[in-house]
Structures are given as C-alpha cells and as structure tokens.
C-alpha cells in the first residue's frame, strides 16, 4: 500500500489504483467526466486535473490527469493548487461553450453530473460570445430519448455501448466539433442494455423516455431499495414513485450482484405497476358472471367462510417468501404447492442441490473473473440478461492478463483494449439457435436440447479420455483454463441440461477446484419457493377434487393449463394484475405489486434479498402476505413472517438477517423515502381537500413515507436513493462505497443461504422426449409482468418459426411463408444457425399452446403475407424529426 501526499496530507492508497480512484475513495472531491468506475480511464475529458510534483524539492509541479496517473510510494500531489483549480474551471467553461441552456426542460436536470461538476469547479459565467454548435437528434426507440446538443464529447456512451455492452449500432460520427453520438440512421437501439446510457451519460444526451412521459425531478421522487422482479438474478434497483405511479427504476449498486448496470427489462419493465390491468379492489363474481366490487373486509369475510374443510393453496415463484409462507401456513403444508410445473420443480431441485453442494457457485460479479466459459443451453441475454454483460467482461480476461504481464494497469482502458485487440478468453456456446453472445464466442455449436445433453456427456467423457472430437476440443479448453465456468439455466425447460451441466462442473472440479457453476433460475423467487416446498404438486393436489383453491399471484391457466381449475368450485385469486386465472375466479383480492409491498426474494445464487415498498398502495390494494394474514387471523407483519420462515425452514435462516427489521432506527429516526427537498407536500392533494392528510404510516419497515428522517446514513439494504451533498447524480455512489468499486460501507447486502458443503454425487439423467419445437425466451415478451409495461410491450416480436433450410424443405415451407398451429400463425424464417430438425418459436403471449405441439402438427398457411421484419415489432420508427 503506497502512501501518497495530497496537499500535504498523507493518504494510504490501494496498490494498482489510479490517483482519481484514490482521491474519491478518500473523500476528496475531484470533478471528472470520462472516467467510470466500471469502465476505467481514457483521459479524454481533461477534467480531473491535479498538480503532480516530481520530487520533494519541486514546488511548481505540473498539471496531470489524476485518472491517468498510477500512484507510487511517496508521490506528492495537490488538488487545491491554484493552477489546478483554474485549469479545471476553464475545462468546464470550454465544455459549456455549446451547452444549450435548456436545463429546465432537460430530464437530467437535478441529477446531472455536468451540473454537479460545474458547481464544483465554480464556473458560472459564459464569457464566449460566439455561436453554439447544434445537432439534430435521432429517434432511438421507445426507451431512450436523444438530445445531442447537450453533449460534452466525453465518449462514455460509445465506450459503454460498444466496448462494455457489445452493441454495434451506436457510434461516434463526424469530425472536429461536429462529433455526433448516435446511430448511422434513426431506429430502435438494438442492445439489451441500452437503458444504462441514461446513467452513463454525464449529462442529458440520453434520457429515459419512459420517465419523461410522466416526468418528475429526482428530488420529488419517493424511492425505496427494491429487488428487480424481471428474472432470477435479483439485481438491486431503486424504484421511484410520484403521484401513485412508478416513474422509473435506477440501478442500485451491489458489489457482488449487478455492479453499476441493469438490463432494459429490469429498468423499464417495472412500469407494469401502472398498467390499466391492475386490480384496484376486491371483487366477488355474482350469479350473472360479473364481478361486483366489494370492500376488502367483506371479501375477506366471504373467503373466511370458504375456509372450512380442505383448502388448496397454490403459491408462486413471483411472489415473496413472506406471501408464500403465509399461504402455506393458512392452508397447511400438505395442501400447499409452490405453483411451478413439474418440470420447473425438477429443474429448481437441481439448482438447489448444486447450491447446497461443494461446487463453487460464483456471484454475478465473480463471473467476470473466469477465464473460460461454457454456456450449456441457456439463452443468457434473453433469460438472465444482466449475466450476459458479465460474460462480456469475462472474455476480456485474456487481455487483462496480457496487460498485467506487460505492466499496464487494468484501469488504463484504451491501452488494455489496444493490447488485447481481438484476443478473447474462450467462450463456448451450446445452443439450438443463434445466441446474442455469438459475437464474442470462440466456438458455437447449434444442437437440439437432447443433443446438447449428449454433447456435454461426451465432454465429461473427454475430460478423462484422449480421443479427438468436438467434445475433446471443448474439454481441453476447459481443462486448460485456470478458472473454468459452466453456465446453464432453465430457458430450454430441460432438467437434463441442468443435470448434465452440474455433472460436468463436478467432473471438472475434481481436476480443477477453481471450477465454477452458475445456473440461472426461472423467476425472481423460483429458488426461494423451491426452498419452502418443492414437492407439492399442483396437478396432484387439485386431482383430489377440492372445494376451495387459493391462488397467490400466479397465472395458473397459462403456466399449468386452463383445464386444471375447471373442477374448482370456489377459486380465490390474490393477484395484482388481471390475467386468465384472475378473470375466472369467484373472488379476487387485490394484491400489492412489488413496488407497494415488502418482500424477500432468493436469487439464483441463493442470496436472500429484501425488497422494500416504494409507496403506499391506493385504496384496498394490500400486500399478499397481509391479506393471507388477515384470513388466518394472525395479522403478522412482514418481519413476523420472516421469523416464521426462519422457524419453519432451517435453510431460510438468513431471511431474517438479510435486512434490518421494522424496529431499526438511526438515532431514533426512520429512514425517509422522500428526499429532504421533496416538493408540493401541501399542494399535491389540495385539489381533493385542502386539509392535508397525515402521511401514511409504515408498520412493516424502518422506512417512512415522508421526507422526515435520516437519509444518507442508512445501510445499503435500506438506502432509498443515492445522494450526497454536491453529488446529485448517481455518481454519488462512491461516497457510500468502502473504496471505489468496492463493497458498501455498511457491508454487502443480502445473505447467501447456502454454505455448500455436501459432495455432489452426480445426477442421473431422466428420459426426456426430444423436443423439436423450441420456445425461445425473449427479453421483451417472455416475462408475464414486464410485458404489461407500456413501452416494453411495443418491443415484443411477432410470432415466427425459425428453422434451418433443410428443416424448411422437409416441412415444405420457405422464407416468409406462414405456418400455423391452431390459431397461432407464425412467419417462417429460414436460418441455418438453427439446429437441424428444430423449429424455434418465440415464447410470447399467445404462443403458449406451442409448448405441447409437434412438428407434424404445423400447417402451411396459404396466401400469407409476412411482416417485413417479424423480429422487430411494428413500431413507428420516428417520433420527432429534430
């Protein structure tokens, strides 16, 4: 640890850090633009200038860029030297020459890094009287807005989009002062991680269009720490609300899970909370088949009357642990099932066994440190999107190794990339169709699900044997690596794929103990509900005909088939959103969405994480566990259920400790969800009544639905937003980190529930029918909830049937023909990257029936006109011209 001297103050620096990181880690404010903690330094903006001194006798020093300066023992710097401060001031003055004077109408205003840095350097007057350069904007799709005039050419957007996220449709164009960041032509941004541009851009060039539709300044948003509901990875998010609507989702830094970035499904999908399909109140179906709105108390009384005799409870992998446990306790353990299909239960059983085994299960951030990756039948980018971003960093390990060997610091981004050129660590993908990660893969194999299983079996054999084959090549790649990683998941709905991946990881681990295995689960709480109970079988429970069935936040019709509930006399559905199951229920109870209820969710790596309610739901909407508590008569709070979970399930002991309970206080204060500068308190509701109501009380958590309380000293698991004096943008996160890019000062949030000690014996593969019709998960379209987010619903593709030319010939169809199964009509796309004898269809609303179809049942549609590009939705391709 070198000691450096900054303005004569001795500072312990971390070896290998650059000066800017050291300064920020030690609470010294230095303005910067182009440096990003996850993307390193390029020294493009010249903003982080400080004075460096050559030796103890040097009194003049010279201006250096702190982000490009490695720290060495005894080095002396000055941040406050007059020439450094005036240099930084003049850099901002120059950057502001062309800035368009439109902060009042900019979505970034109030949380703008450029605003913060301008205030920090003290620049206030524009002396230059010349003309400002202007640009025309582009249409970049329904998610991202573009306002190029605000650009300060820091290059962060293209460095993020191209270098970090692997996108190829956003670039820097033009020359001299005409540099333009955008697409070659207007159109929807293609990358699944484009939403991060909003946070990466230090000013308002890329803004959140979905937020702009119902805009609020950051200071007006009521926020809470939440867990993303869009997939099983459990990324940490801030969900923000104003006027009873979820307005936006921002990344919540977690040093082991999501780091600094989110995927677009997570960022924009949470707007499903505002869907017109939300169930506003309780309803009882009358004799005429119509729902009569009733008060929640009446509905609960009615349900209580039905609770005599045997009641079946069907839980849900998208409901919290608390709600599932409340249901389980209400109906009794024997009458509860977790609401997954038998295949899903089998797959998650495998994941649980792997988590409990001594195989090493890395966190998502650790995935970036593995130097050879085999992806077994998992469509990472569409099914567990954030992981794809980590894989993209992992393949750079070879370059980083090269840099380390050459003595180049890892943060020296441009130099490291120059050195690595196109060298990539091995990434082998076994999948039935093209994968979004193909561009960085060293080897891809297009195989039907069953062939993937046999391929992996061959790899396991080849690890020991020495016979040249494809499998041998993959095996030797994995064996040659210092840290090989096997990634698999549930996207092909094949338990064998998970089993064989675990077997392979076990076989490799015997040779190399650093082997890792990362299995993606299906939904936000799939692993959690499998831990509560993975044996209860919905088909079996409902087969013993039951009078009353309570369904908790689960669309049984779509998941398990509509026939299952036909015999049920009293169907009680607790859900937040209308779906086929709710619309056939006898009684419907309005559940709170994730943004309105506290809940604990277990992600795919077995980490229990608490998600807090962002706002108090309107009217009778109530968190699921509270409805079920009321039915059971025990009226437990969220922490009451967390205690029960711990008492009932030894494996869930960490649920209580993963976040403080509602008694937690900071010097007697709760943690305020609103900022200290939230506005409109005495006018927001004045149109209803001028007499201001009391702020809603939060009995469930230590957070408060007010601006009164402590904000900045909350631990990470309870911090409702990131803000620090002078740092209004999300860049303020470094104020809360132990060191730049490190864990939070309050520790890493969430509790990993598995210690992993049991020896994995190896899974017996079961007999699986060879699937020829393969459902492809889509990042936009395959998630029940995010499909209801207004903007994402416009990005859902149209039904297609992708197949190789040989398969197309055998089905006697050609490109852009129509192919039908029942009333589902798909456009044929001939694509030789699809495994032989396989037809790939999108798993989107309306194509569920194809899950049980056979190839022979598909019929050609006569006289079919194909949409021009079925993978792209029929979007209006421009909004405004300028």
């Amino acid at each position, binding site marked *: 640890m070198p000691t450096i001297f900054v303005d004569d103050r001795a500072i312990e620096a971390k070896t290998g850090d650059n000066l800017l990181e050291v300064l920020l880690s030690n609470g010294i404010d230095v303005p910067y633009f182009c440096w990003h903690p996850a993307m390193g330094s390029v020294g493009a903006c010249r903003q982080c200038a400080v004075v460096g001194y050559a030796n103890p006798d040097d009194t003049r020093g010279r201006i250096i860029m702190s982000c490009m300066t490695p720290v060495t023992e005894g080095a002396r710097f000055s941040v406050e030297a007059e020439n450094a401060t005036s240099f930084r001031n003049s850099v901002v003055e120059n950057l502001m020459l062309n*800035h*368009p*004077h*439109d*902060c*009042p*109408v*900019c979505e970034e*205003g*109030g949380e703008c890094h450029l605003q913060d840095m301008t205030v920090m350097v003290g620049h206030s007057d524009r002396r230059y*009287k*010349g*003309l*400002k*350069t*202007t*640009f*025309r*904007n582009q249409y970049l799709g329904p998610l991202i807005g573009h*306002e190029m*005039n*605000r650009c300060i050419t820091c290059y962060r957007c293209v460095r993020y989009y191209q270098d970090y996220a692997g996108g190829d449709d956003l670039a820097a*164009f*033009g*020359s*001299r*002062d*005409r540099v*333009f960041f955008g697409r070659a032509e207007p159109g929807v941004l293609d990358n699944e991680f484009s939403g991060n541009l909003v946070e990466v851009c230090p000013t308002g060039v890329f803004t959140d269009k979905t937020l*702009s539709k*119902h*805009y*609020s*300044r950051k*200071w*007006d948003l009521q926020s809470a720490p939440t867990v993303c509901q869009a997939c099983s990875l459990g990324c940490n998010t801030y969900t923000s609300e104003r*006027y009873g609507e979820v307005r936006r989702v921002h990344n919540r830094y977690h040093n082991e899970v999501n780091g600094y970035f989110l995927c677009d499904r997570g960022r924009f999908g949470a707007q499903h909370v505002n869907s017109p399909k939300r169930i506003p109140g309780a309803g009882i179906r009358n004799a005429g088949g119509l729902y009569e709105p009733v008060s929640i108390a009446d509905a609960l009384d009615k349900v209580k009357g039905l609770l005599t005799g045997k009641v079946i409870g069907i839980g849900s992998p998208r409901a919290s642990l608390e709600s599932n446990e409340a249901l389980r306790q209400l109906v009794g353990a024997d009458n509860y099932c977790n609401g997954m299909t038998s295949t899903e239960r089998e797959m998650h059983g495998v994941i649980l066994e792997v988590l409990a085994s001594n195989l090493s299960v890395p966190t998502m951030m650790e995935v970036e440190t593995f130097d050879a990756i085999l992806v077994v039948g998992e469509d990472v980018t569409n099914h567990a999107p954030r992981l794809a971003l980590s894989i993209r960093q992992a393949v750079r390990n070879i370059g980083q190794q090269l840099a380390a060997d050459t003595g180049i610091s890892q943060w020296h981004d441009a130099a490291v990339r120059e050195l690595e050129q196109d060298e990539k660590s091995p990434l082998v993908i076994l999948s039935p169709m093209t994968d979004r990660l193909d561009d960085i893969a060293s080897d891809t194999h297009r195989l039907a699900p069953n062939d993937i299983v046999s391929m992996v079996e061959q790899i396991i054999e080849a690890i020991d044997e020495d016979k040249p084959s494809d499998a041998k090549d993959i095996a030797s790649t994995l064996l040659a690596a210092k840290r090989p990683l096997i990634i698999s998941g549930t996207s092909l709905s094949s338990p064998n794929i998970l089993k064989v991946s675990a077997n392979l990881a076990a076989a490799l681990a015997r040779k190399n103990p650093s082997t890792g295995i990362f299995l993606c689960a299906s939904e936000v709480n799939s692993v959690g509900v499998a831990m509560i109970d993975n044996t209860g079988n919905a088909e079996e429970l409902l087969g013993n005909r039951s009078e009353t069935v309570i369904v908790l936040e689960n669309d049984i019709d779509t998941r398990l088939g509509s026939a299952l509930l036909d015999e049920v006399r009293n169907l009680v559905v607790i859900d937040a959103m209308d779906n086929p199951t709710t619309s056939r229920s006898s009684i419907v109870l309005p559940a709170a969405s994730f943004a309105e209820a506290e809940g604990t969710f277990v992600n795919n790596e077995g980490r229990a994480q608490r998600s807090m309610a962002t706002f108090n739901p309107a009217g009778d909407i109530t968190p699921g566990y509270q409805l079920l508590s009321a039915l059971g008569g025990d009226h437990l709070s969220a922490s009451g259920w967390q205690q029960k979970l711990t008492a009932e399930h030894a494996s869930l002991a960490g649920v209580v400790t993963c976040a403080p309970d509602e008694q937690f206080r900071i010097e007697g204060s709760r943690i305020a969800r609103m900022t200290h*500068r*939230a*506005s*409109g*308190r*005495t*006018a*927001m509701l*004045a*149109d209803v*009544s*001028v*007499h201001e109501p009391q702020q809603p009380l939060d009995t469930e958590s230590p957070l408060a639905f007010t601006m009164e309380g402590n904000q900045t000293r909350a631990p990470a698991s309870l911090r409702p937003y990131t803000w620090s004096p002078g740092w209004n943008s999300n860049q303020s996160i470094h104020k809360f980190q132990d060191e730049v890019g490190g864990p939070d000062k309050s520790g890493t949030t969430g509790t990993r529930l598995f210690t992993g000690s049991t020896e994995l014996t190896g899974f017996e593969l079961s007999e699986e029918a060879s699937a020829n019709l393969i459902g492809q998960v889509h990042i936009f379209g395959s998630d029940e909830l995010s499909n209801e987010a207004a903007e994402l619903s416009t990005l859902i593709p149209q039904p297609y049937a992708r197949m190789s030319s040989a398969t197309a010939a055998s089905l006697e169809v050609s490109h852009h023909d129509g192919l039908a199964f029942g009333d589902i009509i798909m456009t044929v796309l001939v694509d030789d990257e699809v495994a032989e004898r396989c037809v790939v269809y999108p798993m989107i609303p309306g194509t569920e029936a194809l899950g049980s179809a056979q190839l022979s049942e598909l019929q050609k549609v006569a006289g079919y006109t194909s949409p021009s590009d079925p993978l792209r939705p029929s979007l209006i391709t421009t909004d*405004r011209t*300028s």
Partner: protein
Amino acid sequence: MDMILKAIWSQLVTLFEVLRHTFTKADTVEYPEEMPYLAPRYRGRIVLTRDPDGEERCVACNLCAVVCPVDCIALQKTEDDHGRWYPEFFRINFSRCIMCGMCEEACPTYAIQLTPDFEMCEYDRQNMVYEKEHLLISGQGKYHGYSFYNVSGKSIEDKDKGEARNEAPPVDVRSLLP
C-alpha cells in the same frame, strides 16, 4: 447638568415633531373605498404568464415547487407533439402560500410572477386552491419580451435546431471538411 439639558431638548423636539405631524397629509387610505398604490414589485397573488407569442411560459421545470418553503406548489410536466414542455396541471395552495416570492426568483422563464393583488380572502379554505386555469393570465406580466425557447437549444414547433439566439445552424455530421 449637561445631560439634563440634552434630555429636556430631546423631549421638546419630540413634542414638536408630533405636533407637526398633526398637520401633514395621512399616509393611510380609506381602504377599501380608496385603493392604495402598490408597486409592481409588490408580492401578492401569483400568476402564470405567457411569452410574447402567447404560449405558456411555464416549462414545468419544478424549480418553483422545490424552492417553495411551504411546499404549496405542485405541478406535473407533460409535453406537446413537438417537444415543448408545459404543465399538465399547476396548483398553488394559497392557504399555505406566504408570498415570499422565492418561486418568482427561481423561475428560469419568467413564467411565475407575483402581482400587487392581495385581495384573496375566502370563506371556504378550499377556494384558496388555485389550478392552472385560475393562475394563467393572457399577458406577459412584469417581464416583457422574454421567451425561454428562443434562448434554449431545444427545438419546438416553429423553432428548429439552430434557430435560437447565438446558435449556428445544425451541423452536417457526414461532412469531413476541415
């Protein structure tokens, strides 16, 4: 002795001053029969003004709301088809307003202005809640000639990129000329 004389002199001057004021014209007026003169800068009822083209000046930036010490301003941004921001609703709860004028100082577009009208009493407090329709006037108020969009780089209907004050025409990004 000197002090006593000074004190007596002071008393006499005071008596004289009081006597003199008996014959001067009164500053108080017989309100409401007679209306007092209030300077334009007087801080009374708040209005929303329009720019010289008759468009709403308010761009819903929320600065007035955030600066308001009693939090009595609430508004919601919306935008027209051409990207011009304006408030979907704009509400001032005058029963809370302390007429401090901070909103006017914070306003970057001269939209919100305080006027010399203070006669706002109501029997029912609910009537003190003013919506946009009550606040928006037809004219420019105290500050004439200013139009925010003419100096800001955001394009709106009838004002393209490069047409604001001090702006060069939009660049041709495909040009490679030096």
